[in-house]
């Protein structure tokens, strides 16, 4: 292994050179805000800020979980179906009664943790490639959902809908939930042994194992946390929609979109580099692009094209910067 990669691996997540998402977010806010202002609207009005933050919350919670899966050198394609499933579990268990809110939340957490555990075991014990393992688990859940549900089911009591609709000043409660999840995971990555082992595992699985990291355990735990995040997003969507929706996850494209948000935030797809703060930036950037196009009443499909280009362009810039910094290091060594 060359010295620069060694050095890079010793660095903590969040201090990564690839983290260019914040300047991009600033540019998007300035350019987008100006465009919307020229159009006679305002990107920073209370109502548009609220809807922007609300849009960010759902994807954001999933993306935080996806971040650690990718950091660990894995990924999770089952999250979209986990979201649909847990929204149904939540709404059907609650069935409109206030007393069932807490049991429903607990059940959702258990269900999503079990799915994460299955993902993790398939990847570590049966050594199935993460892409195929989580795709297969996703297909299983998809089959169950399509077999059992034709449309929305269950209902959520008004008390639980506060999560989807209430806010503190201009900040929706759901966004605070996103912030809390992100902060918890950020802290875990930065300050716990598990967090450091996770980065090591993602950087180089064999080296981590040879250094005494129990990589299987790290990967399983990572997948459980990733699924839990998807379950929390399912709870949020249930409270927002008032019922469970069997297709809400797949139609929202939460699987690929969450991966896109993570990568936009500077986390390297191969694992070992990046962090949660970047992902928060990536999610906000996607939400700002969304918000700007909504305000300008641009066709939503055109928005998707722009999104595709932005994601690829961002990663191209990161790749370029990574090469530059490693060239510079090589020059410094020489």
């Amino acid at each position: 292994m060359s010295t620069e990669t060694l050095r890079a691996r010793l660095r903590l997540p969040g201090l990564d050179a690839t983290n260019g998402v914040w300047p991009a977010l600033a540019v998007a806010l300035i350019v987008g805000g100006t465009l919307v202002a020229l159009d006679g609207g305002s990107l920073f009005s209370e109502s548009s800020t609220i809807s922007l933050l609300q849009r960010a919350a759902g994807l954001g919670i999933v993306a935080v979980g996806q971040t650690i899966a990718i950091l660990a050198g894995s990924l999770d394609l089952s999250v979209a179906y986990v979201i649909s499933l847990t929204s149904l579990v939540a709404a059907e268990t609650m069935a409109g009664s206030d007393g069932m809110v807490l049991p429903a939340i607990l059940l959702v957490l258990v269900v999503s943790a079990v799915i994460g555990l299955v993902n993790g075991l398939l990847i570590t014990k049966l050594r199935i490639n993460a892409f195929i393992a989580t795709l297969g688990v996703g297909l299983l859940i998809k089959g169950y959902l399509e077999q059992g549900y034709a449309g929305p089911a269950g209902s959520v009591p008004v008390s639980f809908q506060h999560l989807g609709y209430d806010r503190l000043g201009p900040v929706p409660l759901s966004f605070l939930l996103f912030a809390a999840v992100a902060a918890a995971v950020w802290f875990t990555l930065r300050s716990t042994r598990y967090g450091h082992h996770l980065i090591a595992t993602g950087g180089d699985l064999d080296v981590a194992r040879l250094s005494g990291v129990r990589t299987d355990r790290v990967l399983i735990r990572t997948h459980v946390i990733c699924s839990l995040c998807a379950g929390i997003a399912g709870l949020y969507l249930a409270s927002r929609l008032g019922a469970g929706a069997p297709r809400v996850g797949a139609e929202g494209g939460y699987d690929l979109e969450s991966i896109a948000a993570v990568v936009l935030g500077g986390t390297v797809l191969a694992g070992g580099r990046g962090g949660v703060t970047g992902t928060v930036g990536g999610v906000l950037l996607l939400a700002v692009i969304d918000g700007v196009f909504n305000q300008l009443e641009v066709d939503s499909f055109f928005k998707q094209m722009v999104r595709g280009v932005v994601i690829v362009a961002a990663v191209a810039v990161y790749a370029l910067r990574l090469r530059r910094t490693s060239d510079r290091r090589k020059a410094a060594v020489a």
Partner: protein
Amino acid sequence: MSTELATPAPAVASGLGGGGRSGWGVGSIRPVLIILALLLIAVGIRQPDFYDPPVLLAFLKRAAPLIILAAGQYFVIVAGDFDLSVGSLVTAEVVIAARLIDGDPAATWPVIALLLGFGLLIGLVNGLVTTLLQVPSFITTLGMYLVLVGAVYTWTGGSPRGALSEEFRMFGRRGIDGVPVLGQLPYAVLVLSGVAVLAVLAMRSDFGKVLLAVGDNPRAARVTGARTARVRTIAFLASGLLAAVAAILLGGFGGVSFQVGQGLEFTAITAVVLGGVVLGGGRGSVAGAMLGALTLQTLLTLLNLLGVSGALSSAVQGLIILAAVAVGTLRRRT
């Protein structure tokens, strides 16, 4: 994904030639052949006339697009990349064809040429962005997927317009009549045979050997003088071109809709993996990939014959994939 690193250095037995056409080793086609044989026997029991040449040919005709897509995806995967854009490319091709032909028979051939060119162009962009800008192909082709879906919707204003000419549909629907024994020989089967022969020849040529070497160990391939960027780009060109061919056949069978290509990228990747090809590159044969697609199609036919609803079939599909891949990797370890 670096989880692949978890496997101990794979058996050299399969060799750099990588075909691994015999034995149980990595990339072997024997497991998929056994699964396929079992499935074919089951289908034969359920539908006794399945082995009548016309019925068998009709089955192959239905399987042709997926097998062709799997061959294209194989080139990309064996070089260590992904192509997530093929599903949206198929949709785009069919929608473009319908709009440009608009029922005019005279437009058929020019439009077919245009479609093939468009497939090549998309492959070229995917390849160049991945190799020159060093964007991971997962992201490049995910971005391309977003762009293509968005572009198709924007261009058509939300619903497909126009119609395909009968001459265009001929490739997917008709065949050469009056062939002895076989009855009608579908054009789709002819196209499929052509693609299969060319794909196997390509993998036996120098190009194929370099492609395998690049997927196996990119750095070693580069050091030994292989033009890695060029072969990887050619792999993307092949994937784009074959997606266009598959789209022409699919346009023949079915109607024009935005759903033609939905999810085909994952189905194709699944087929390739089922055929013993390892995600991450370097191992597996193109024959295996195509057999994997045939196996998947046989499985769907069997589920259909058994009266398993379409909804549940995705669950069974998920289960079979997990089982097949798990058995494959466990064998590899022993």
